[in-house]
């Protein structure tokens, strides 16, 4: 990524969108909207001082909403360019409120609340579409209860949990436990606030809250102490709740029994009929990393087939089974229900025993489908190219990188679901097709003349 950012022949236009494409192969006119960042790219050094003091917390979607970022942010630390961006939906200033802390903090003077979108016109010889894919929303599958069960997560969420720079610093904490800890923290804040208020009353009256409370119950206390007692009545259940939560939290452990469910949204006629190609390997990788992180971890991968198609992939799969406590189970999980201790319970058929089995896990990871991007239809219209029956950009097998319009090529998951090596190889191929479009050869000169 950094190599691309530093390459003298590459001009990177991040946070920009193509709006119009005219002309033909060799001489396209492309209109690009460079969206306002409200930060001057030329001045911003990416130091992050603005971010430190921004008062607005926003869910960090880079961490799949499991942590927060600020209203001025960069998508992730090593991102290119490192220029920060203000999120106009959440920034106080851009929402018409008072703030501007970032502007005061920025020593480079890069913050510019007046910045507007810029339209750029480009002369382009060939176009490569590499817009990728979207992770399927498993909330659409009612029987997996993704939205209701905290300990059912997607593979991408789990990837963030495994990451040292992720929301749990690489420890596999269960989302239900994270939520409980967050609740404890909030209650503790509330508790200390109430404790301070009560202490003030106690100091003033020279009596303990409990004694006044008892006097109140016996209706011997003066009525001006009414407010004090209201606070105390708030305080008592709070401490009880907190004590209960704390004792529960003592029993929290990281997730050690993992279940991976394959083909969530793919190979499913209700959603996407195709195979997403990379999820089997992705699940195996995640299970192996989880095991490396914590040797007591066991994983069960539920799938119809384990598609380890790639150089060294099947060997990797076998090694995962032998050395990383992975069990591969040929089954399509019918349902996930909630069990005690927030443990998701999988309901599936053991075909050999011809029995329905219920098995509970600490955490369930859904290998979600590689779905076409929502914007693909719009993109296809702008580029004047067609989509195939699955919703990806259409190509022909004889020329696997060429779209239906000359001079426009496609690679990666915008082409069809594929893994990293294939995407990389395809990207090189798309580059080669693009170069051929813009290279003047004797054969082409003959064709023109």
């Amino acid at each position, binding site marked *: 990524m950094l190599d691309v950012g*530093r390459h003298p022949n590459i001009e990177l236009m991040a946070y920009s969108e193509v709006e119009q494409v005219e002309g033909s192969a060799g001489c396209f006119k492309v209109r690009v909207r460079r969206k306002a960042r409200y930060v001057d790219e030329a001045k911003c*050094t990416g130091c992050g001082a603005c971010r430190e003091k921004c008062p607005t917390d926003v869910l960090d979607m880079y961490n799949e909403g499991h942590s927060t970022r600020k209203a001025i942010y960069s998508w992730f630390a090593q991102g290119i360019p490192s220029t920060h961006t203000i999120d106009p939906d959440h920034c106080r200033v851009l929402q018409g409120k008072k703030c501007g802390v970032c502007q005061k903090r920025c020593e480079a003077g890069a913050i510019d609340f007046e910045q507007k979108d810029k339209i750029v016109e480009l002369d382009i010889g060939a176009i490569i579409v590499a817009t990728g894919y979207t992770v399927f929303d498993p909330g659409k599958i009612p029987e997996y209860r993704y939205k209701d069960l905290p300990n059912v997560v997607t593979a991408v969420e789990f990837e963030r949990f495994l990451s040292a720079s992720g929301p749990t610093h690489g420890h596999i904490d269960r989302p239900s436990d994270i939520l409980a800890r967050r609740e404890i923290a909030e209650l503790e804040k509330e508790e200390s606030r109430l404790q301070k208020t009560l202490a003030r009353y106690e100091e003033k009256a020279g009596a303990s809250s409990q004694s006044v409370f008892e006097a109140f119950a016996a209706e011997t206390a003066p009525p001006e102490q009414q407010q004090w007692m209201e606070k105390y009545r708030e305080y008592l259940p709070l401490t009880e709740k907190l004590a209960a939560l704390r004792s529960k939290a003592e029993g929290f452990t990281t997730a050690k029994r993992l279940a991976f469910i394959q083909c969530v949204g793919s190979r499913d006629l209700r959603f996407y009929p195709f195979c997403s190609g990379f999820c089997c390997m992705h699940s195996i990788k995640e299970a192996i990393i989880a095991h490396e992180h914590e040797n007591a971890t066991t994983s069960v991968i539920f799938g119809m087939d384990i598609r380890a198609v790639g150089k060294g992939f099947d060997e990797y799969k076998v090694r995962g089974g032998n050395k990383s406590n992975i069990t591969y189970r040929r089954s399509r999980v019918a349902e996930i229900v909630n069990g005690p201790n927030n443990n998701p319970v999988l309901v599936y058929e053991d075909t050999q025993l011809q029995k329905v089995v219920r098995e509970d896990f600490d955490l369930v990871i859904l290998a979600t489908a590689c779905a076409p991007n929502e914007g693909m239809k719009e993109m296809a219209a702008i580029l004047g190219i067609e989509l195939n029956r699955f919703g990806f950009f259409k190509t022909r097998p004889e020329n696997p990188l060429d779209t239906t319009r000359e001079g426009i090529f496609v690679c990666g998951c915008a082409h069809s679901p594929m893994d990293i*090596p*294939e995407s990389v190889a395809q*990207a*090189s191929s798309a580059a080669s097709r693009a170069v051929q479009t813009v*290279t003047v050869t004797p054969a082409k000169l003959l064709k023109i003349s």
Partner: protein
Amino acid sequence: MKQNKTGENTEGLRVGVFICDCGSNIAGHLDCAEVTKYAADLPGVVFTKENLYTCSEAGISEIQNAIRENNLNRVVVASCSPRTHHPLFASSCAQAGMNPYLFEMVNIRDQCSWVHMGQRDIATAKAKDLVRMGVAKSTALEPQKDIESSVIRKILVIGGGIAGLSAAEALAGMGLEVLLVEKEERCGGLMLGLNVLETGKSAAGQVSDLAATVAATSGVTVHTASRVIEISGYIGNFRVVIETPAGKVEDTVGCIVVACGAVPLVEEGLFGYNGKDVITQMELEQRLASGSFKAARVVMIQCAGARNATREYCSRICCATAVKNAMIIKRKYPLAEVHVLYRDMQMYGDEKEQMLWDARGMGIKFHVFDQKKPPRVGDGKVTFQHAVLGETKEFTVDLTVLSTPLVARPESSQVAALMRVPCDKNGFFLEAHAKLRPLDFAADGIFVCGSARYPVTSVEARTQGLGVASRIGAILFKEKLVKSGIVAEIDQETCVGCMGCLNVCPYEAIIFNRETGVCEVKEILCKGCGNCASTCPSHSAVLRGYKPEQLLAQIRAI
């Protein structure tokens, strides 16, 4: 005057030390702030800085600003692996005006924080030691120059199958000259023997058309029934010798593409293979093409000879081939019974999975078996244990088709030896990086595509063939090549000409000069492995950037 431990003069040295947190990868396990503070007091050090991510754009510009503002003439970055990040930091230093060979990298992640997790004190102490050694070495470094060489805009493509032809087509399309060498009488490779593709089009027809187009393209020379017998030289300037029916041809090329494909396994006795009623998918294709296919009850067995102890890999394409052929049979003979016995149906991606849906719809039956209980074939019957139902099943068959894997060509090891490129344990060519450099070899200027690397479909082979073309274009469109100055040098005064270095050099980068009686390094070929330096009995051979005094400075600082 400041002096370091060894008493050397450190006057004029201005070392900048950058300590990277790598998020929490390093800072989570050792005290980066303390290491930074410690580094500030090391001899020669005039600037220190701790970064969250030194490799981020902000981190890089901090290094560059520090060089400019503090006149740094040495930079030490203590962070992750030099393998991934040395080039980035060194070139960033160069951009800021410092000789990049005066940059030194210390690995405090892979070799420190990661191996001493949970031992914060030990890790911090070790990081200090490593940084001190790095700084000591940096003070002994000398500026070097990059080595430049010319390029020949011509490419040798070994193999005229779909991958090689696609590469040749794309390279010629970029205006480069191509030398295509095919071992057989005609180009086309494995596809010549196939029946039809998934699209229903003739495989042989398609590849023959491509071969004809390529042969007719100006700038492409095709040698059929020929072999490459000698390759020497280096990126930009390879000398190749080709044995053609018309005699030996010698030429020079800038890059080489290996596209020599793979062959389907044929193993006598495998599931009762006899080439008659137990055949391979390839033979089935040929029967279908010639019209000699005759069977009403067909059973296909997947992973025949693959994904087992002797051949651990999945051959990727056999499932799709089986489904394709099953559908062809079923379409032509709707009453035929076709069963596919499989372990995992590898119908990855969109179109292939759709084929599987369609095949099921046509009435082709799929049955899963367990590797531990493989099907038994004999007496016109196939018996197997159904892995889902747990029952034993038996089919009476007219024809059993084995989906055997593609295996490396026996001659690919000879091809590999010509260029000294590695093969994996299955005999397939080994690329530079499984994920990020699938088409490159670790050796510069040599590329791989198609089934020579690992079994691929014709579409994937074509994609890869086109892909190597852009990899090569990025090299050959340059005016000249620039390579690292970290190469060996031999002191002409002290060398006694024993030729010990010559024997250990794996790149043939050392020659013996008969006139002077001493050995010389051909810098352009040298990869900087240091074998010669460690062998030389008179210490005449040294590796730049790793000279004894430089390494000793590092060691003495321990």
